[in-house]
C-alpha cells in the first residue's frame, strides 16, 4: 500500500514539476501556484529524498529544476554520504543543462538562504569554471557573477575580477569584450559589440532610436531574443532581425505563430506550417512514423488562452502536439473542439465540450488517442470522464486503444495536473517535444505500475542522464 502511495506521490510531483512554473494560470493565481508547488517540493523532499533528486534526470522545467537543486543543497545535512555523492553529480549535470541566468539565480538564492558549505562552493566553482567565456559572463551577468564570486570565494581570472570589483581603476582592458563594455558607456559605436540585453540599457541611456539600435545589434542576438523580437522588428521594418524559422524549437515556434494576428497567419501559412512541420520532424528524430494510427483531441476552449504571463500557452502546446503527432504517426487525425480547417488559425473560444469530441475520436478506433486539455471539462461537466469510463468498460474491454491525457496546466488545489478520468493516465506537459518521453512515463500515472518498476525506470533515466552528460562534456 505504501509503495502505491509513493508511486502516486512521485508521479504527481513529476507532473507538477513539468507543468507548473509558479506563474498565474487561467484558473488560479500566482500566489496559489507558488504555495502549492512549494509545499509539494517540501513533501517529496522530506519523504522520498533519493527519488526527489532523481527527478533532475527527467524533463522537468527549468524553474523546478532550479528549485530542486536549491532544496537539495539546503538540506544536504540530512542526506547520507553516498546519497550526497550521487546528488552532487546530478546537480552538476543539471546545472550544465540550465540556461546561465537560471543558474545564477540559484546562486543568488543560495546566498539569500546563507548556504555556503564546502560542497556548495565546489559546485559553484566547478560550474563557473565550466563556462566558456568568463569575460562574456562578467558583462552579461555582471551582478549575478559578482554575487556568486563573493559568495563562493571564487578566484576570477585577471581582468574579469577587475571589471567586477574594481571597475573604476583601469583606463583600458586587454579583453575585447570588457574594453567594448567600458567604451560603450561613452561611445555609441562600441554598444553594438555587446550582448543585446546589456546594450539595450546603454542604448536607452544614450537615447538611441529603437529602429537604429535593432539594426545595429541584430548580429549579436541569440536565437531566443531573435524570435522574441520578430514582431517588434517587423513593425519597425528592421529586416535584419528576421530569422529563418526553421531552427526554432517546436513549442516556441507554436507560441510565436499564435502570437500573430489571424490574417497574417493566413498570409504566411506556407512558411509557418513548413517551419512547424520541420521542427516536429526534428523533435521526433528516429521515432517518426512509428506510432501507427493516432487520433488527437485538442482543447481550443477559452481557458486555453492561458493567463497574462503565459499567454496562449496551453493552446500553443496543443498546436505543437498536433504537428508532433502528425510526424510521429503513420496515420493521423487531429480533432479540435471548436475549430475546423487549418489548425494554424486556431483560436481559444467557447466552452470545453470534451466528451463528444473524445467519442468522435474513439469512433475511428485508433491505436492511440492523445488528449491535450487543461482538464476542465464543463459542457456538460464530467462528460469526458463518463465517455472514457463507458468506453473502457463496455466498448473496448481489451484496451486496444491506448489513451493518454496530456495536461499543460498545474492545478494548485489538487497538487497535480487535473485528471479527466480515473482510469486514464494524465501527465503534465510543458513542451510538446517531450511528448514521446512523457507517454513512456504515463504508464506509472494510472496506478497500475509498482514502485520498484518506477525506481528502475528512474534509475535508468539517471544513468542515461549522467553518461550523456559526461559524454557531452568530453566532446569539444
Amino acid at each position, binding site marked *: 500500500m505504501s509503495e502505491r502511495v509513493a508511486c502516486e506521490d512521485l508521479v504527481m510531483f513529476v507532473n507538477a514539476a513539468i507543468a507548473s512554473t509558479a506563474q498565474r494560470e*487561467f*484558473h488560479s493565481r500566482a500566489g496559489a501556484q507558488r504555495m502549492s508547488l512549494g509545499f509539494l517540493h517540501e513533501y517529496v523532499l522530506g519523504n522520498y529524498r533519493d527519488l526527489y533528486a532523481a527527478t533532475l534526470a527527467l524533463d522537468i522545467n527549468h524553474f523546478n529544476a532550479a528549485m530542486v537543486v536549491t532544496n537539495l543543497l539546503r538540506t544536504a545535512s540530512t542526506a547520507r554520504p553516498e546519497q550526497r555523492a550521487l546528488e552532487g553529480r546530478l546537480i552538476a549535470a543539471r546545472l550544465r543543462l540550465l540556461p546561465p541566468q537560471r543558474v545564477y539565480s540559484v546562486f543568488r538564492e543560495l546566498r539569500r538562504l546563507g548556504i555556503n558549505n564546502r560542497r556548495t562552493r565546489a559546485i559553484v566553482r566547478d560550474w563557473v569554471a565550466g563556462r566558456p567565456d568568463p569575460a562574456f559572463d562578467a558583462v552579461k551577468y555582471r551582478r549575478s557573477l559578482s554575487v556568486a564570486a563573493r559568495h563562493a570565494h571564487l578566484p576570477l581570472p585577471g581582468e574579469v575580477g577587475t571589471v567586477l570589483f574594481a571597475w573604476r581603476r583601469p583606463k583600458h582592458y586587454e579583453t575585447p569584450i570588457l574594453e567594448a563594455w567600458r567604451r560603450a558607456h561613452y561611445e555609441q559605436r562600441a554598444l553594438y559589440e555587446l550582448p543585446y540585453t546589456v546594450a539595450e540599457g546603454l542604448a536607452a541611456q544614450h537615447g538611441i532610436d529603437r529602429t537604429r539600435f535593432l539594426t545595429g545589434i541584430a548580429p549579436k542576438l541569440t536565437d531566443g531574443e531573435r524570435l522574441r523580437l520578430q514582431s517588434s522588428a517587423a513593425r519597425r521594418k528592421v529586416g535584419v532581425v528576421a530569422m529563418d524559422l526553421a531552427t526554432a524549437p517546436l513549442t516556441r515556434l507554436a507560441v510565436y505563430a499564435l502570437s500573430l494576428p489571424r490574417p497574417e497567419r493566413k498570409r504566411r501559412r506556407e512558411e509557418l506550417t513548413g517551419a512547424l512541420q520541420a521542427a516536429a520532424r526534428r523533435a521526433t528524430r528516429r521515432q517518426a512514423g512509428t506510432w501507427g494510427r493516432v487520433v488527437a483531441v485538442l482543447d481550443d*476552449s*477559452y*481557458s486555453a488562452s492561458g493567463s497574462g504571463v503565459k499567454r496562449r500557452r496551453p493552446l500553443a502546446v496543443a498546436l505543437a502536439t498536433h504537428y508532433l503527432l502528425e510526424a510521429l504517426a503513420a496515420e493521423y487525425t487531429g480533432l479540435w473542439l*471548436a475549430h475546423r480547417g487549418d489548425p494554424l488559425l486556431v483560436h481559444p*473560444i*467557447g*466552452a*470545453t465540450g470534451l*466528451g*463528444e469530441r473524445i*467519442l468522435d475520436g*474513439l*469512433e475511428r478506433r485508433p491505436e492511440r488517442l492523445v488528449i491535450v486539455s487543461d482538464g476542465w471539462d*464543463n*459542457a*456538460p*461537466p*464530467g*462528460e469526458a*470522464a*463518463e*465517455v472514457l*469510463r*463507458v*468506453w473502457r*468498460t*463496455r*466498448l473496448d474491454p481489451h484496451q486496444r486503444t491506448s489513451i493518454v491525457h496530456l495536461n499543460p496546466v498545474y492545478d494548485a488545489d489538487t497538487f497535480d495536473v487535473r485528471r479527466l478520468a480515473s482510469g486514464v493516465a494524465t501527465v503534465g506537459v510543458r513542451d510538446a517535444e517531450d511528448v514521446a518521453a512523457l507517454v513512456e512515463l504515463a504508464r506509472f500515472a494510472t496506478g497500475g505500475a509498482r514502485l520498484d518498476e518506477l525506481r528502475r525506470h528512474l534509475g535508468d533515466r539517471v544513468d542515461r542522464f549522467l553518461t550523456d552528460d559526461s559524454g557531452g562534456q568530453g566532446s569539444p
Partner: protein
Amino acid sequence: MDRIDLTGLTVAPDQTWGAVRLVPLLRPVPISDLRLHARLYDPDELSIVDIGHRTAYISYVPHAFVASWTTDDTPAAAYGTQLRDPAASSAPTGIRLAFRRRMARRDDKQRLRFLPLHLATEGYLALQFGGPPIAWQEWTRHAVTRGLSPRVEATYSGTAIPGLDDALRIFEIHPDQCGMVLYVADTLAAAFVVSHPDDYRALHPTLLQDFYGELLFQYAHLYPAVPGFTARLDDTAIASVADLRAQLAQARADWAAFHTVMAGGLLAAERLTFTPVNRMGRFTLSRFLPALDPDTENHIGETITDDTGQLAYLKTFRLSAAQTRRGHLLSQLAAHDWDLDTTATALGTDRQGIALRLDNAGFGHLLRPDIIDACRNRSRKLHNRATRTRPTSREG
C-alpha cells in the same frame, strides 16, 4: 403578459466556480435588429435621476445600457463599450453628482439610453410611494402629506460578492450565447438576456457592476463551493457507439429540464405585473414586479419584448426577504386603502400586530407616535411577563 417566457433560448450546461454557478442561455437565431451596448459612468460619482415632477432617484449608477434598433429588420452594429473620459471635465475629486434625465431616455431617433436594474428598482421603490389616500387618524401628518419620501434600499455591488469576479473572468462564453442565469450557492441570483451574442460578449463584464441582493452576498460568504452536476451514464444499456451517443444526447436534454426546476422561482412565477416604460419601434421596454409573496422567491426586473412577445432583453434582481416583506406590507395596505384594522384582519393579526410589523419594517415613522408607542409598550410588557414566568437556570 404576466410571466417570463424563455422561448427561443436553449439552456447549456452550467459552469461553476466556488459558490457561483453560471448557466449559459443560447439563442440559435439571434435578434439582429436590436442591439445593446454599455455606457460606463465615472465610478466615483453619485447619480441623481430625475423621474418626474419634483421626484428624484439617487443612486450609484456605474453604467447605462443603450439600445439601438432598426425599423426595417436590417442588422445593426453595436457601438461597443464606450468609456467616458473622466479627465475631460475639470471636476473636483470626491463624489460628484451627475444628473441623468429620466431612467429611460431617447438619445437619438432610434437609440434609447436606460439605466439597467435601476429602472426596476425605481419601480419597486415607488410602490405605494404616495402614502395613505384617505387621511385615517392613525397616520401622521408627514405620512399623509409626503408619503414614503424618501424611500431607501441598500444592495451589494457585484464586486462585493466574493468569487463573482473570478467566476465571470474564467467563464467560457459559448459562441452563440445570449444570456445567463446566475446562481449563488444554488439559489437563483439573477438572470440576464440580450438580443445578440456579440452584445452579450461586450456586456458580460457589466454583470460585475450590477447590484445584487443581501441574500446572495451572505450565501457567497457562507458556502465555499457548490457541487457539480455530473450525469452518470447507464453503462449496462450501452453496446455500441451509437448507444453511447444517444445517452449523451439524453443527458443533455435532462439537463435543460433540470434547469427549469432550478430557476422555478423566476420562470414559474405566475403573477408578475408588467409596466411598459418605453416603446421603441416594434420593441417594448417594460419593468415587472412580482406578487410579493413572503413565502416564495421574488424577482423584480425589466424586459424588452418584441411585437410577437419574444424576449429580447431581460435583467432581474432578487429581493431579499426583508425587501419582500416591506413590499408585501405596502401592497396589502394599499389594497385595503391603508385602513389598519381591515389590513390587520387580512393579514391574520390585530391592530397591535400590524403596527409592530410596520415598525419593524422601518415604516414606524408613518404612524402617530402615541399609537406606535402604546403598541411598543404593550409588546414589551407581554415579552417581560413571558420571560419572567419561564423558569431560568439562575433561579433554579
